[in-house]
């Protein structure tokens, strides 16, 4: 039996990695989104409603959460895709704030087994006890989370080896040039947005079942800055980059008692220093390429 605190930290790292990967995916195509936390929130509410109110199984709930996240992001992507640079960032920020306030007004109460359940405005959505009712331990849940993280990472690896990965990076580098080279930029950006929304929704769906409740304050701007920063710290060269960012933040800063109080103060400093000295993160494209060449040299 592993220490429960460690299990909690590990599943937290897994869930935040999924969210960070969704922001990373958008960074690949050159869009800096300040609003991924909104789709995390949508996913959390959708997943919670599916298990607690509709009595679905966990798998269905997670699928529903991912779908709702994807749908919400598609809704935002359609009008904002033609925006560039900081316009896109501020638009996503505004949208995320609007979503947070809207969830504060969202009431959907139902009688489940003699108790009133469901989202209750500012009080949030409490008592989503699926994993406790089904006798899943924290350890089992952590394994589910990490299985999903590994699966997503594998998809990212396949993407990098296929022709689609380089195309996404090309759009991120210069979308006009990418368009001139015959890449359908809008289509790729829409697909990327949908995938990013699904990842954020999945992360939210996992989160609400792990901690049994969510309230609008959880997905405020503070979560947004972390989500975006994980990829920027870890590096944009590989999908492992966001994981490194999450490890530094949750594994190191949040889990040590003396440090957790100053977490955001240190974290903000790290982000800024990295933006100055390594604008594309620790594992940036140049380093990843160099490592790849070193690794494959003998074959």
């Amino acid at each position: 039996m592993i220490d429960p605190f460690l299990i909690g930290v590990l599943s937290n790292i897994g869930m935040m990695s999924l969210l960070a990967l969704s922001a990373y995916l958008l960074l690949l195509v050159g869009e800096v989104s300040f609003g991924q936390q909104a789709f995390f929130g949508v996913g959390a509410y959708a997943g919670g409603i599916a298990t607690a109110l509709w009595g679905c199984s966990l798998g269905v709930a997670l699928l529903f959460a991912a779908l709702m996240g994807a749908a919400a992001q598609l809704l935002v992507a359609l009008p904002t895709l033609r925006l560039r640079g900081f316009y896109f960032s501020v638009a996503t920020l505004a949208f995320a704030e609007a979503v947070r306030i809207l969830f504060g007004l969202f009431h959907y109460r139902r009688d489940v087994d003699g108790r009133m359940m469901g989202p209750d405005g500012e009080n949030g959505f409490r008592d989503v006890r699926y994993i406790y009712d089904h006798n899943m331990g924290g350890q089992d849940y952590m394994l589910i989370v990490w299985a999903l993280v590994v699966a997503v990472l594998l998809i990212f690896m396949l993407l990098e080896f296929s022709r689609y990965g380089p195309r996404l990076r090309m759009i991120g580098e210069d979308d006009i040039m990418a368009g001139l080279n015959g890449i359908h930029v809008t289509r790729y950006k829409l697909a990327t947005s949908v995938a990013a929304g699904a990842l954020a929704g999945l992360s939210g769906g996992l989160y609400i079942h792990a901690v049994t409740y969510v309230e609008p304050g959880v997905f405020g701007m503070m979560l947004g800055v972390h989500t975006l920063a994980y990829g920027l710290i870890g590096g944009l060269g590989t999908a492992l980059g966001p994981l490194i960012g999450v490890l530094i933040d949750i594994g190191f800063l949040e889990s040590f008692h003396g440090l957790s109080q100053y977490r955001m103060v240190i974290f903000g400093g790290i982000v800024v220093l990295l933006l100055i000295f390594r604008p594309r993160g620790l594992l940036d494209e140049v380093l990843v390429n160099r490592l790849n060449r070193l690794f494959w040299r003998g074959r």
Partner: protein
Amino acid sequence: MFVDIVQNTIEGLAHGAAYGLIALGFTLMFGVMGRLNLAYGSIIMIGLYAGIFVQSRWHVHWMVVAGTVMACSVIAGIYVERLCFAPMRDGAAMASLVASFAIWMQLEEAAMLVLPRHSYPFPAPTDQVVIELGPFLLRGDHLVTLGTAALIMIILERLVQNSRFGLGLRAIAESPRAAGFVGQHVRRSLFLVFIIASMVGGVAGWLIASTNHQVSAMFGMWATYKGLVAAMLGGLGSMRGALAGGLLLGLVEAYSLWAFGPQIRDLSASLILFLLIVMRPGGLFGQKQAMLGAAARTRL
């Protein structure tokens, strides 16, 4: 009904003047640098928290508090400029944006560590002055805010349009490299712009805090958000637009508060910002489209 509408208009304009003041600082920085400083609200918040700290420790005169607010806003502004704007290479506007977003959260957390309560009382210079005009109520401090906003707008516009320094700033806004070639000290000018904007922010923060008689932990976020919406409503980079945008936002908020309640009021600012960017990114009075286009094309 009619009385309500007029009274709400008065309230809206009064709050709008405060938004306009913050928007002036935003628009000044954006107009010259072509970069957005999301940490602006937290710069003001640091100044206000310093003022509260001094006030609660030594119970000083309100002038000293006002001075502290201004001075500490400027210090916080210098910190942000040195970290988020000075070291970023040319064209890396997105790096500055993300860095200022991170510093925003950092400053907010740091302020909460020093003064952890949710809200603190803030001293006003005089007792409440209320002017009665028939059935309508006008608050003296609101009038002062409105007057100060107009005054600062005129001073800033004079500075930018009619002085040698302003000519240099406009040259830098047009093209930093070309301005450097003809002998402008680009970095020094940007630094000065930042100090001026932080001072404007300090004045705005002090006026708002003493009108509300308190400062809450949400102030940084509130100021950044409202200032940004107001500045974008008027078109980023335009001084008159900033003030007009502030007044407009104030009116919209006052009416939606009156009609639908506080949560819808908060929602309306976010929705306005989102719809504005999607439909009219250049602002309602859209100008300087070319410059905005160049700023929008930069990437990380």
